[in-house]
Every structure is written in C-alpha cells, then in structure tokens.
C-alpha cells in the first residue's frame, strides 16, 4: 500500500513537471506577447514597454522565465499582470465563488443520474425508458445558452425570482434570512442549468452500463438462485455497474477549478471559469499558468483517488 502510494506520487510528480513545461511552452508559443497588449495606447512608450519586459522577466531566455515563474508560484509571490494582485489570492476568491455552484451542480448531477439511468435500464423499452431517453437527447442537443435564456425568461417572468449575479444588488442591509434565501435563489438556476447537460449524459451512461451488466452470466446465475428481482438488480448487477463510475468520480475533482465559462457569463457569476477566460484574453500569463497548474494537480489527484477507490471496490484489483 505505502509503496503503491510512493510509486504513484513519484510518477505523478514527473507527469506534473512535464505538464508545467508544456503548458508554459504552449502559452509562449501562442502568438502575441503581454507587452503588445495595446500598441496604440500613447501611455505605452517604448521605455515603458522595456521597463515592463524587464520587470516581468520577459527579456530573459525561456527556461529562465520558466524558473522565475514557478519560483514565484511556489513562494506565493506570483502576481497578476493585470491588476498586480497575488494570483493565489485571486484564484482563491474566485474559487470560493464557484464552489457552491460546483457542489450543488455535482450533487444534482450525481443524485439524479443514477436513479434515472438505473430505472431506465431495468424497465428497458418501457414508457419511462423511452421518455427519459428522449429528454436526455433533447437536453444534450439543445445549446446551453439558448436553454439558459428560456429558463431565465420563464423563471423571472413567472416566479419573479432574481437570477443575475450571486446576490441582489443593494440587499446587504436586509436580515440574514432574506440574504440567505436570496443567495440560494441566485444559486438555483445556474446549478440546475449546469447539471442539466451532466444529468443527460451521465444517466445515459449509467443506463448503458447497467444494461450491459444485466446481460452478464452472473446476473442470470443470481436469478437462477431464486433471488427477488430487487436483489438481482440492486445487489448483483448494480455493484458491478458502478465500478466504472468510481473512475469518473475521481475526475470530478478538476471540475472544482474549471467552472463553466458559458453559465458564469450568462448569469454574471464571478467564478473561476470567467476569470480564466478573461485572463486568456488579457494575456495574463501568471493567472493562466497557475490555473493550469492547479487543475493539472487536481487531475492527477483525481486519478490517484480513483485508483485507490477502485482497489477498495473491485476485489480483482490488488497492489
């Protein structure tokens, strides 16, 4: 066990190193340079430009820049080129904004997809199965932003519920109960929207997985033993059908930092996704690279977590 963890840690660190090098290279190979942001701006004289380049080490060779960047990142000195604020602080702030959205979205996705997919598989070909199939493909094929606007119109005009931003502007003087409800209402629509596509895809996947397992010989054996059908489906079939989702569960982790650009933009939600998107537009390299690096860490941690979980749930996998 310990040797497994140690080996894994070493291997993943090596991977992380290469990810850092490659993401650094990609960003620097992309055309354009931060100092070129606005060549027409009269404030940007040649001298100012040079000063900037020096200050941000842009005049050094690439590998030196690379070292500078990761030194700053690890010592926490890395700052955004846009507003000079520490990158980690900035990310943390946005992360806290995205977190409720992520948690609620993931919760909705995972708690809905499984019952829906499992029931569809067990009653294959029934009205329930066919209608959820239709709904899933509908949700998958309809563009997210379009769906969002329909929902916004519906919710705002029918329910008179505030939806834009994280809370209603100027409400901070109200009592804490009103404040809480206001925040929850704001959270509601973006989470549901974010989860809709996820539920559609994941429930399909659950259904197919379950169907495949239902046709296995050991499920027939379970029936031949005279077990009640609940035990056949929910014990013998489900336990096996769930195995691949353990892997997926580990891959949820990177979603923590991803956020959804589209949904955050539609709802003016000041989250991670929008920050990263704006950083790219502004060529704010420290922010881009840091987000990149952190998500790489989360991906690796996620796969590690799934490996560990897999060992717990699948007796065939041992160290």
């Amino acid at each position: 066990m310990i040797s497994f963890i140690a080996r894994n840690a070493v291997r993943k660190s090596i991977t992380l190193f290469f990810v850092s090098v490659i993401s650094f290279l990609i960003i620097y190979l992309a055309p354009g340079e931060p100092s070129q942001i606005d060549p027409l701006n009269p404030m940007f004289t040649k001298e100012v430009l040079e000063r900037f380049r020096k200050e941000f080490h842009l005049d050094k060779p690439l590998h030196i820049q690379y070292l500078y960047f990761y030194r700053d990142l690890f010592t926490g000195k890395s700052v955004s080129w846009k507003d000079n604020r520490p990158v980690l602080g900035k990310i943390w702030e946005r992360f806290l904004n995205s977190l409720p959205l992520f948690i609620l979205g993931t919760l909705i996705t995972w708690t809905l997809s499984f019952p829906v997919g499992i029931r569809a598989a067990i009653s294959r070909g029934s009205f329930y199965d066919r209608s959820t199939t239709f709904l899933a493909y509908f949700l998958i094929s309809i563009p997210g932003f379009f769906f969002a606007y329909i929902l916004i119109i519906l919710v705002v005009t029918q329910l008179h519920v505030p939806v834009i931003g994280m809370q209603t502007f100027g409400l901070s003087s109200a009592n804490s109960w009103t404040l809480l409800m206001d925040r929850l209402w704001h959270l509601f629509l973006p989470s549901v929207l974010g989860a809709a596509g996820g539920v559609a895809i994941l429930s399909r996947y659950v259904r197919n997985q379950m169907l495949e397992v239902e046709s296995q010989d050991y499920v027939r054996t379970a029936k031949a033993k005279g077990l009640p059908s609940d035990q056949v489906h929910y014990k013998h079939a489900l336990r096996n059908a769930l195995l691949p989702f353990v892997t997926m569960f580990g891959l949820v982790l990177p979603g923590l930092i991803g956020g959804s650009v589209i949904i955050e933009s539609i709802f003016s939600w000041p989250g991670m996704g929008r920050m990263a998107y704006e950083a790219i537009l502004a060529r704010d390299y420290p922010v881009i690279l840091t987000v990149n690096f952190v998500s790489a860490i989360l991906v690796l941690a996620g796969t590690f977590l799934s490996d560990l979980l897999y060992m717990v749930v699948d007796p065939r996998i041992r160290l």
Partner: protein
Amino acid sequence: MEKDLLLSVNNLKVYFHGEETISKAVDGISYEVAKGQIVSLVGESGCGKTVSALTLLGLVPCPPGKIEDGEILFRGKNLLNFSEQQMQKVRGREISMVFQEPMTSLNPVFTIGDQIQEVILNHENVGKEIALKRTITLLKDVGIPSPEERVNDYPHLLSGGQRQRVMIAMALACGPDLVIADEPTTALDVTVQAQILQLFRELQQKRNMAVLLITHNLGVVAEIVDRIYVMYAGIIVETGTVKEVFKDPFHPYTMGLLAAIPGSSKKGKPLYSIPGSVPDSAYKPEGCPFNPRCPYVQDECKIKFPEMVNFKAGHQARCPITYRLWENQELPKNRHFGFENVKRAGQA
C-alpha cells in the same frame, strides 16, 4: 418409473420473435424425468438445449422469447402458470441450475462464500452462522480443499474447475429435487471434465436427486445417465435408455452423434463429425429438419414432418425411413461405426 414422475415436459414450444424472423428455438419437445434419475438431453450446439433448460426456470428473456405452447409439469403442477413470485421459490430451492460457463457465472465482486450462503439465506429461515457452516460443508462436499479459508475467496482466485465446483455447491445448497446441468464440463479441461462428472454422479447418488444433464457429447453421458433424449433443431428425434440408444440407435442423427464420440472411430483416423451444421432456428428446412445432412434421406423426408415412431417399448425415434428398414431387418448392425459407409451407400 412412472409412479415417481418428477418433471414432465409436454409439447413445449419457445420461439424468439425477431424483426422479420421467428426463431423456433424449441419447437414442441416432450420429455420426462423421474425422481432420482439422471436424464440427458443431447444435441449439437444450437439445437435449443439451453433455451429449453432456461424455460424450466422461467429464465428465458421475454421478449424476444415467447412460450408458444406446451406445459411443464413439476410434481404435477404446471410451472408455466406460476407467477414470478412463485417461480422465485422454485428456483434454487426445488430446481437449480449449473451453467456452461464457470468463468463468467460467478459474480466477480462477491466472495464465493457470500454467493453460496445467499441461496440458503434466501430460501430458508436460518441465521448467518448456520448458513456459513453449511456453506463450508457444501464446499467440502464438492471437493474444494480447505473450505474454511476458501469461503472468503473471490471467484477470480479460483480455477475453472474449482469455480464449477462452487457453482455445483450453490446449486445443491438447498437440497433441490432437480438439478439442471447445462454442459457443465464443456468449458473445462479434459481431465477436469472427468472429475466434475464423477462428482455429479457421487452427489446425485448420495442425495438421491434428479439431474437433467445437457451435453453435446454422447460420450460424456454413457456411464452415468439413465435415459437419453436426443435433440435436433428444437425437437426430440430419439429417446431410449442409454443401453438401447448406444446399442441400437434408430435415428440417423443419433448414429452420427455416436460416430462422433472421441475414441469411437478407429485409431489413426481423424475424429468423425456429421457433415453440415445445425440449421438456423429461423430457417429450418421443410419436412424433417435433419434431411439435408441425412445419409438415409428419401424424397418424403423433404416434404413431410416425421412423427415419433415406437421402435420398441420406451425406445422411440422420429424416422419413418429407418423404421421401414428395421422392420424389414435391413438396418445394418453396428450402425454408428459404419455411419460414413452408410453415407456413401446412400449416395450411390
């Protein structure tokens, strides 16, 4: 024998309805199993053996499957009229089944102890400790060494033969009256095959249970079976006691199967196999379904579906041609060894 009748299948028909075709997998079979008897259903792959066995337990997937006709009388009651709940009480307790594929028939995520105990806990009102004790005894009975430790093993740690032993233990757990063994040795090594068959025979005698042994290899059944039903393309083509059928096969298909037993052809000669293959159950030939492969074929075989003919008491076959030859004493002796020669003679 008649008075102790346990199972009686009458004119059972199971069809699979496809988009455009109907697969007549089981097309009117009748057979009987008496208490404590070993009866064998023999036929090549695709003859409908597995489907007819699964029908006994109500495990044919419907749809696409459909039971078109017939009855399955088990202790005088028609299982086809049973509700799903009633069938659940029959499965694993009164009738249990050992499958062909030991490698995939056990659930990979539960220990073998769990999987055996489950049958006992499901059907009987006993506690976990008693169930565990009985599981260990069962494992010992089926010849698993150090069963106290093995109960906690997961299936992937066991060999094919051991897994089949576990399947047998599972089938025996509640002391059923009838065990259906669907080609229990086909997926195993030859040496292991003999051991598993031996085990079946011992357990059957000790527990005085009936066994429906399904196989495609007549050689397997010779020593342990009481009665044989030869199945071809969804129908029974011949039935008799082992002695009768081996000594005096009347249906040309049975003769072919006997000729195909490993070791029956002369040394140095390649293993015989009946030319051609079992017809797809959706596209069976007119008349006798065996007629395209039959060395005795006559024109009438291609038109008229043959009736079961009584050759001797209890020994019947579905072939009017051999019946005529037999009546006129023109049917050669040692027919199964001379099957190839018959073929040539038939063509000449």
